[in-house]
């Protein structure tokens, strides 16, 4: 059986560099000295730590629990000691994020796995297990998988798509995973299909991944169709693949479920299998480490491993090359190599020589960017508006529908880094919205403050927490404060001055 193919506009054929990393079996790197777990490396609210500094932890032990419905659990990937919970840079952008840091003890002792779920477990039980095991989408944004399953429990899922369309030129982690763990992926897909009661299930790979296709097809399963899609970038994008396989469109700003679709990445499907059948939480993943190094390939990396550890194992000599997290099309250059591998880290790419950064030339209005945009955006106009800072106009042209695939920048003959402008414009809009929200909240608290003070002055005893309003004797209070000030002065004189200089308003 082959997969259906519907018309799909846009996209671009890019040269592939997959055989750099996909010819050798995956390898396990030696244990790193420490592991770093950002409490927030996914969509949703930060996880809540359940361990503290000094605690001994075992492999598979829970480190942090989901703090809300849209959040994730984190688990130790090996045994060790919690050194601290502190702000640590996390990619992209080296955003300082509270993180649990574990000193690895090298013994790799683990806890017993959970019992497998019974074969007739219902959607609720599967959803609970996925929450407990910290399974999140491993293909991109890191959306908690149990939330998607919940969507599927409450709404009709016509099509479940397991996405193995690894369309970024250098990345091969899903390719290797499919070749090495095809049976688990297919089984995971069947569990997901059962959980959400999906009408049909497709597992899709790219046309030029014959080995992965063969590996999957060696495990035929009822109700699961395995097949290929054309190797046109970005066919693996969520909305693009849905259009390609079902002909249905996900509305602007909408979710796949609105088109009757749930999509999970192949690595997620395997993590589902591991959680449900093997009773293991998600603590490792395949990461492609490729580009300018002596031993490019795929690593079975523990979540939390510092990026520098994998680069070293890959034989990177270091130097002034750029390290990109993600692929060359959608990835972002890293500033710090100490950032950890998270559940969504698929690739580290060391760009061979210094990339041929060609100076951007003026736009010649050739329209190439419009032709390749998979979301049919007017990339040229978006670029003009983003550059000019006309963010309203950019939003009117559906800036937020841009999936940052980079196809437009790739084909631009003037070498304009269009996506860079789009990312900056989105960030500027988000910042403006944050400022707006903060101002509204400030105003609310300010008005309450004013009302309270007015009530105080009117002598009302109810409105204020202040002692003067509680009917106390002002003179006695003043004396009490003076005495306290004296005590502090004496204490200050006795000990060394408190750290830091006292700042004042500029």
């Amino acid at each position: 059986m082959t997969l259906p193919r519907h018309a799909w506009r846009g996209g671009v054929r890019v040269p592939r560099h997959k055989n750099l990393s996909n010819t050798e079996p995956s390898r396990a790197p030696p244990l790193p000295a420490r592991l770093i777990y950002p409490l927030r490396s996914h969509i949703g609210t930060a996880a809540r730590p359940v361990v503290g500094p000094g605690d001994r932890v075992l492999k598979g032990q829970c480190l942090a629990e989901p703090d809300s419905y849209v959040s994730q659990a984190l688990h130790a990937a090996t045994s060790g000691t919690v050194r601290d919970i502190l702000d640590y840079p996390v990619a992209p952008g080296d955003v300082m994020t509270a993180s649990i840091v574990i000193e690895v003890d090298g013994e790799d002792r683990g806890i017993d796995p959970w019992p497998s779920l019974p074969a007739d477990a219902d959607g609720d039980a599967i959803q609970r297990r996925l929450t407990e095991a910290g399974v999140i989408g491993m293909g991109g944004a890191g959306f908690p998988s149990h939330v998607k399953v919940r969507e599927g429990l409450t709404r009709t899922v016509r099509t479940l798509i397991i996405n193995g369309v690894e369309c970024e030129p250098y990345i091969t982690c899903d390719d290797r995973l499919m070749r090495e763990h095809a049976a688990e992926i297919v089984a995971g897909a069947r569990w997901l299909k059962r959980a959400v009661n999906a009408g049909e299930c497709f597992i899709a790979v790219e046309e030029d991944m014959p080995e992965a296709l063969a590996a999957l097809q060696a495990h035929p399963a009822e109700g699961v169709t395995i097949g290929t899609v054309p190797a046109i970038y970005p066919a693996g994008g969520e909305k693009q693949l849905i259009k390609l396989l079902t002909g249905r469109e996900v509305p602007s700003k909408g979710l796949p479920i609105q088109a009757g679709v749930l999509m999970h990445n192949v690595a997620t499907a395997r993590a589902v299998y591991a959680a449900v059948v093997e009773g293991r939480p998600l603590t490792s993943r395949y990461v492609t480490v490729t580009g300018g190094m002596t031993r490019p390939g795929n690593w079975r990396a523990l979540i939390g491993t510092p990026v520098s550890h994998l680069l070293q194992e890959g034989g990177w000599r270091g130097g002034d090359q750029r390290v990109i997290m993600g692929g060359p099309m959608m990835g972002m250059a890293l500033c710090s190599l100490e950032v950890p591998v998270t559940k969504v880290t698929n690739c580290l790419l060391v760009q061979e020589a210094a990339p041929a950064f060609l100076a951007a030339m003026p736009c010649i209005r050739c329209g190439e960017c419009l032709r390749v945009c998979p979301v049919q955006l007017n990339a040229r106009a978006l670029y003009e508006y983003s550059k000019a800072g006309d963010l309203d106009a950019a939003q009117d042209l559906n800036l937020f529908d841009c999936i940052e695939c980079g196809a437009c920048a790739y084909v631009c003959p003037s070498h304009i880094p269009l996506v860079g402008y789009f990312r900056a414009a989105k960030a500027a809009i988000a910042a403006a919205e944050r400022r707006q929200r903060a101002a509204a909240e400030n105003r609310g608290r300010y008005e309450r403050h004013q009302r309270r003070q007015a009530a105080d002055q009117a002598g009302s005893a109810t409105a204020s927490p202040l002692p003067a309003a509680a009917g106390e004797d002002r003179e006695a209070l003043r004396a009490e404060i003076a005495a306290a000030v004296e005590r502090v002065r004496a204490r200050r004189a006795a000990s060394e001055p408190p750290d830091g200089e006292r700042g004042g308003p500029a």
Partner: protein
Amino acid sequence: MLPWLLLAILGLAAGLAVTRPARGGRDDAALAEKTERIDALLPQTQCGLCGYHGCRPYAEAVARGEAAIDRCPPGGAATVAALADLLGVEPLPAPVSPPARVAVIDERLCIGCTLCLDACPVDAIVGAPRLMHTVIAALCTGCGLCLPPCPVDCIQLRPVPAARGAG
């Protein structure tokens, strides 16, 4: 073609509506509305750096044409641009925004006098009489108004750690 024409006519009508001079009691209403719209563009830090006692008084002054649009340092270029846009005037060079800072109370020294509670315009401090006070960093705008009243000088302004907002 047609929708554009329609929009143009609507725009013209709207333009006439706002430029028509208001008379009598409608003056006050118009002024109040203008003040409201200006206030909505201010950061609501209530820091007083504009020389007025808070954002609304400054908004009133701008609405009456008594204050220039470049007086609000926390708002910076974004506020100047938004005000220029709203009022249909040329943007002025933006004032220098103060560095992002946050107040920190040295809790070992705080005597619990509650004077800073009163001073903080945006209720970013929590505490109770004779008990330790502390600043809720996420709510603090770094205006520094809580510093002068503290009798034991135990409040400092510190630089905001990088990318705090992202967490």
